[in-house]
């Protein structure tokens, strides 16, 4: 596009005043053009940087990486990009949110454009640098909120344990993993004995407090890799990766003893609360993760039949 004199001076003006950084380097990395945006934010006038080597003028630039990126443009004649999401900035510029920002310096997206001569060889690389500080702030707020929502959607409001959906999902994942790697997997289903009586005699607020306290005691008895969730009203599911029924039995006994170890104090009453537990493990014949829950439930039922406050291992034939 041949530019008339008027167009050329218009273009000069626009390049200089556009609200983005524009600068050009040649193959020796010498700066040939430095627009007003770059002047303002680098606090370096064009006439003090033009003709200088980019990396000598700005030693804080990530030289090894950027130099290679520039070289690749001369070799490959290809546009290249940088994004704040991976590399927050090239130049350490102040941003225009000194008060409301919350980030240390201007976040930048950058486009590196090859400028070719009539033979198609790259002579210069033109950088355009965009201030994306606002975008980055919104993005991190969005991420924080999403993370909070995800956390909330996984938790049971009363006990703060994982909810049923989450713990079933975790079991599903562990089920697939154990199948793939032929590793062990056990589950414990546990239920508070005579919980209805607590509610009936002491009221629902007391019942809630018992649920919370038992949740704390169960959680304190587990290992880091175990997943504990509130499965139903007074039922809890524990997923135990890399654990056979022997290991699960030891753990279940520990949970049973931890829960009954000391009385729960509520509204003047001091209650000894027991739990019953059922255990099963992944076998060759286990068809789906739901089968594990069903088997643990049968074992739990057996514990109730056997007088409660005990642990039962699932056996085929229950």
């Amino acid at each position, binding site marked *: 596009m041949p530019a008339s004199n008027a167009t050329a001076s218009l273009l000069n003006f626009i390049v200089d005043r556009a609200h983005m950084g524009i600068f050009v380097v040649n193959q020796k990395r010498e700066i040939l053009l430095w627009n007003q945006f770059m002047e303002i934010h680098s606090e370096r006038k064009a006439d003090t940087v033009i003709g200088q080597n980019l990396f000598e003028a700005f030693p804080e630039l990530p030289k090894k990486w950027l130099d290679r*990126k520039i070289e*690749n443009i001369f*070799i*490959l*004649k*290809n*546009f*290249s*990009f*940088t*994004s704040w*999401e*991976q*590399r927050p900035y090239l130049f350490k510029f102040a941003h225009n949110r000194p008060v409301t920002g919350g980030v240390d310096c201007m976040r930048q*997206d950058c*486009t590196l454009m090859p400028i070719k001569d009539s033979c198609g060889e790259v002579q210069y690389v033109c950088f355009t640098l965009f201030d994306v500080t606002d975008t980055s702030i919104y993005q991190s707020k969005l991420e924080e909120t999403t993370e909070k929502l995800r956390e909330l959607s996984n938790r049971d409001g009363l006990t703060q344990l994982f909810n049923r959906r989450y713990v079933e999902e975790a079991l599903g994942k562990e089920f697939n993993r154990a199948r*793939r790697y032929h590793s062990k997997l056990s589950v414990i289903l546990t239920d508070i004995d005579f919980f209805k009586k607590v509610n009936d005699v002491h009221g629902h607020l007391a019942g809630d407090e018992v649920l919370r306290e038992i949740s704390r005691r169960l959680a304190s008895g587990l290992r880091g890799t175990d997943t504990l969730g509130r499965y139903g009203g007074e039922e809890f599911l524990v997923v135990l990766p890399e654990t056979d029924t022997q290991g699960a039995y030891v753990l279940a006994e520990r949970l049973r003893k931890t829960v009954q170890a000391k009385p729960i104090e509520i509204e003047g009453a001091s209650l000894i609360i027991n739990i019953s537990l059922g255990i099963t493990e992944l076998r060759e014949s286990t068809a789906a993760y739901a089968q594990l829950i069903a088997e643990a439930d049968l074992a739990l039922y057996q514990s109730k039949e056997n007088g409660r406050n005990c642990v039962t291992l699932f056996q085929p034939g229950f």
Partner: protein
Amino acid sequence: MYCTNTVSFKPASKTTSMSIQPYTEDQNDALQEVVNIAMGQAGDSLARILGHFVGLSVPRIRLVTVEDVIKTVTDMVDENAEISAVRQAFSNALRGEAIVAFAQAGADDLADLMGYDTDLDQSAEQELLLEVSNLLVGAVINGISDTLKTDLSFSAPSLMAQRTPLDQVLVPEQLSWSHALLMEVNFTVEDRDFHCHLLMFMTEGAIDTLRDILDEFMDSI
């Protein structure tokens, strides 16, 4: 001219017949030739940057449905595998999107190939994937626009998925088109784990535009 000594074409592993033919045989031949050249240039660019011999499959061009696309990517890696994927838009004379899918094992190998420390942090790994994607997509786009004498530009690369199970990368329900023209090729690096799959999609309008461009191209030679 680009040098071909570092790039080799391999026969495609399988061929799928097209159910609908968007182009005549001549148009197809011309397009295949143009895409071969462009993909070859992409492979050559990759070889230059990695300093390794790069192999590529014969580029396939076909009209696909949403289901085919999922299967295309599934063919590349095993079903449970995790992949990372980068997308870039191209526009101007032809509009569409390019996706580069990296098998995870290969992505780890890439850092080593590019001469970086192998235990990269997440941002550095992402940057590397974006860089390679941009290199391939840029070379293909430049190759096509040089040969067809059309103007094509492309957007900055962005990450679609990192270490994500395959079935979550492209979810059929979220795709709003029924048919697309797909041009695809596989890049491998000799004796290394690294391989990636380049997919370029054009949907309805662009398929027609490309037909006109191909006719003009054939008239001009």
